[in-house]
């Protein structure tokens, strides 16, 4: 990587360049600001939700270079040079849903839906790496995301529905 040394005193900003949902973005941010806050407040992508802001609930999960991470447990300055996918980046340009979105829609995996963006991003990575997971594997992979409404049953069913949709597409 061999980045140059960087320093910012309290109140100073650092220039951060990332690719978010395919578009290159540059932000001047204070190091204290989380990646989640910058995604929401600077990029205006408010689909990434903040529940606990200390890494417990998983609502803020985004893909960083393809891998799920908690965007509240990252400083935006740590994301310099990375590629980020948020919930807004899932649907196709024509508005048709990603299979995981369609699966969760069909299975009514939502009640208040606050947690849904995090579940969806975790599930995207799961199905990419394991296109045919068992129910236990789904539960285990989604164990880092909390939902206070559904009891999880419908969320697991949503992922299983997505597996069928993706299977039928092939």
């Amino acid at each position, binding site marked *: *990587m*061999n*980045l*140059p*040394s*960087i*320093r*910012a*005193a*309290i*109140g100073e900003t*650092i220039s951060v360049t990332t690719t978010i949902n395919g578009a290159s973005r540059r932000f001047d941010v*204070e*190091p*204290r*600001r*989380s990646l989640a*806050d910058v995604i929401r407040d600077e990029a205006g992508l408010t689909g990434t939700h903040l529940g606990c*802001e*200390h*890494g417990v609930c*998983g609502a803020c*999960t985004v893909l*960083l270079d393809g*891998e*799920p*991470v*908690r965007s*509240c*447990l*990252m*400083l935006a*300055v*740590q994301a310099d040079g990375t590629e980020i996918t948020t919930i807004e980046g899932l649907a196709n340009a024509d508005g048709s849903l990603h299979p995981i979105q369609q699966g969760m829609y069909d299975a009514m995996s939502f009640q208040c839906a606050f947690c849904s963006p995090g579940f969806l991003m*975790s599930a995207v*990575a799961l199905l990419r790496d394991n296109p045919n997971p068992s129910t236990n594997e789904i*539960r*285990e*992979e989604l*164990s*880092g995301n909390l939902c206070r409404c559904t009891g999880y049953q419908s969320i697991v069913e949503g992922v299983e529905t997505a597996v069928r949709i993706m299977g039928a597409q092939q």
Partner: protein
Amino acid sequence: MKNPPFNYHRPATLTEALDLLAAHGDDAKVLAGGQSLLPVMALRLGRPDHVVDIAAIDELKHIATASGALSLGAMVRHAQAETSPMVAEHAPVVAAALPHVGHRAIRNRGTVVGSIAHADAAAEMPAVCLTLGATLHLASATGTREIAAADFFLGFFTTAALPEELVTSVTFPPWSATSGGAVVEISRRHGDYAMCGLACAIDVADGVIESAALSFFGVASTPIRVAEAEAIVVGQRPSPALFAQAAEVVADVLSPDSDIHATANHRRQIAAVLTRRGLAQSADQIGIPV
């Protein structure tokens, strides 16, 4: 909560990082993966004036072996170690522990050495270090030193590392074909901190256990070995009766606290179950079904 303000440093070299730690000492905290430090800051349990981000330092990113010993640099993330064939081959107990560490999103960012340096008594990696006899490599602006895992963990979130020191890597000693090991734990939800866990390893020669290490986590202010139970199994042939005897000793010796997750008594019972389970898995690994 939002992070409190801090002075941010991202040094490009180890020398620069060590100079920063020398200059700021206790007022500085090292940021590796951030999966422990950032929650600590968000909850205002810690409020460092200076954060030293070591992510740009290339010499901290190695997964390497020398004479059979596995070395992991301070910037090796859990997910990298989890998928490394070298870790699976040379430190199977480390590989066995990794799926238990947090959730996938946490493992994608958090580092193995960071977890060790954070020294949460309920975490897997410190106990694994204790069981395997790992060595921590520390550096400061004035020199380097090595500390055995047995001397590293001093108390809750407290280690022998000085404020101006950086843990640059951890080394696990060579793993032998006559060794078997396991990491077993019981938690309320997969990926959460365990109510109690065990990292264990045994060495067997001619069907007899030559050495044993049983390190429990989540039951004291540091990971702890139970020498009394290790002594029971050494010199004996693996058997369910022997492991049950060791389990009884473990339950007698440990004196965990009660908290919202489990009572002390419950933890002792879990520790006994894990002793039988972990030792049986260890024996099974070297072809001795118990």
